[in-house]
């Protein structure tokens, strides 16, 4: 059977991983290449790289780093951040990305999802949605969660899936950074609305939160987190061992 995926997310700015990381045995904790290798070795099922660079120079650096990661790490890579056009898709896919995540770029120009899915296949296009409750309604936020678009989130996600988005990352702004657990009601609303894989993001603070996620919402395919992995608060081998004890299927990592 298909296993639940555990996905660390790396925010990269000017060629370095943002958010301090603290691992024993890692020579350079803010090197995206070293950190990616570490995660791959300990059993991460996929990696997400977000380019949070604003400058063109930083973007070039990001692309170079991506090439380096993809030539040494052989697990699926999703790349997001600054994806506004098919040229952006092309740029990161040529460097070994398997999936490309769109967010603000799709909000600005929703046709991007359709055009990319047509050219690269649905499996390549990930819609990342930053969602927050506004007056009890799920709203889509743009620009890294700073700007309320006023759009209702579930219909936005459904529209993108109809246009060819093959996977959805649901990032709850309400639970993000709180470490009180994933946003189960929001995730359930998305899972009920679409038939493509759903990745839960925002709110994981400990191992129990992943167990709660996969037990209460078996339709969710993957759990994504950043700082709890980077800071070593949750170690992926421990997380997977606990999930296995709870009869949640996860991939075992084969030794080299």
């Amino acid at each position: 059977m298909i296993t639940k995926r555990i996905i660390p997310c790396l925010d990269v700015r000017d060629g370095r991983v943002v958010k301090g990381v603290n691992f024993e045995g890692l020579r350079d904790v803010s090197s995206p290449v070293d950190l990616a290798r570490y995660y791959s070795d300990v059993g991460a099922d996929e990696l997400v790289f977000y380019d949070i660079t604003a400058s063109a120079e930083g973007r070039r650096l990001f692309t170079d780093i991506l090439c380096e990661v993809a030539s040494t790490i052989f697990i699926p890579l999703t790349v997001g951040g600054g994806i506004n056009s098919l040229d952006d898709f092309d740029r990161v896919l040529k460097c070994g990305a398997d999936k490309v995540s769109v967010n603000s770029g799709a909000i600005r120009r929703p046709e991007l999802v359709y055009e990319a899915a047509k050219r690269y296949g649905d499996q390549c296009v990930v819609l990342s949605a930053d969602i927050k409750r506004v007056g009890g309604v799920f709203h889509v936020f743009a620009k890294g969660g700073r700007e309320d678009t006023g759009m209702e989130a579930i219909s936005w996600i459904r529209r993108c899936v109809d246009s060819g988005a093959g996977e959805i990352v649901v990032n709850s702004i309400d639970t993000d950074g709180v470490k009180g657990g994933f946003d189960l009601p929001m995730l359930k609303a998305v899972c009920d609305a679409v038939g493509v894989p759903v990745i839960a993001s925002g709110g994981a603070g400990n191992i129990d939160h992943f167990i709660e996620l996969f037990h209460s919402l078996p339709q969710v395919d993957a759990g994504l987190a950043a700082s709890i992995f980077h800071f070593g608060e949750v170690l992926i081998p421990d997380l997977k061992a606990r999930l296995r004890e709870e009869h949640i299927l996860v991939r075992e990592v084969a030794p080299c």
Partner: protein
Amino acid sequence: MIAIIDYGVGNLFSLKSSFAAIGAEARVTSHPEDLAAADRIILPGVGAFGDAAEKLCRAGMDQAVLEQVSAGKPLLGICLGMQLLLEESLEYGTHAGLGLIPGQVRPISEVIPADYKIPHIGWNALQFCGEPSRLFSRISEGDAVYFVHSFQATGCAAHTIACAEYGAPLTAAVAKENVFGCQFHPEKSGNVGLNILRAFCDLEV
């Protein structure tokens, strides 16, 4: 030298890198005549079957592959490249494949329960069918590999060397003499995938 066939579908960066990682010399080529100089051949592919089959023909690669295979050279089809090994596909119409493995490519929706998501995407365990294939000499049954597909090879039970359970057994890998195919992506399947590529490189020419 391993020839990775470039016929304009999908990017081959990871595949080329994965051979480099296991110390095998691989060259991406779009020239049919290069296949003769290779020890073994990789047929990759993503996207739609009909389009890919047409591009393979237009590149003159279909005949070149058939010639090299009949000369005994090991061939490994990956993902859509594996599906192209079969006789035909029903993806958006009926399209002819290379016919190296008997069978037909059909939607997985025909066999999996309605509440299973399509595509079949993620890590799934390999269940060997019969004696372990030479392609699996460096891995174990139950090892997980990475899949992304909505269609699968059918009618090829005699040549199926591994399945993956997804509400129904899906065809994960096929083999017939020197022709091999993986529905999953060995170049995205961590060490298990690299060990499958190593085993392919071990095959005697």
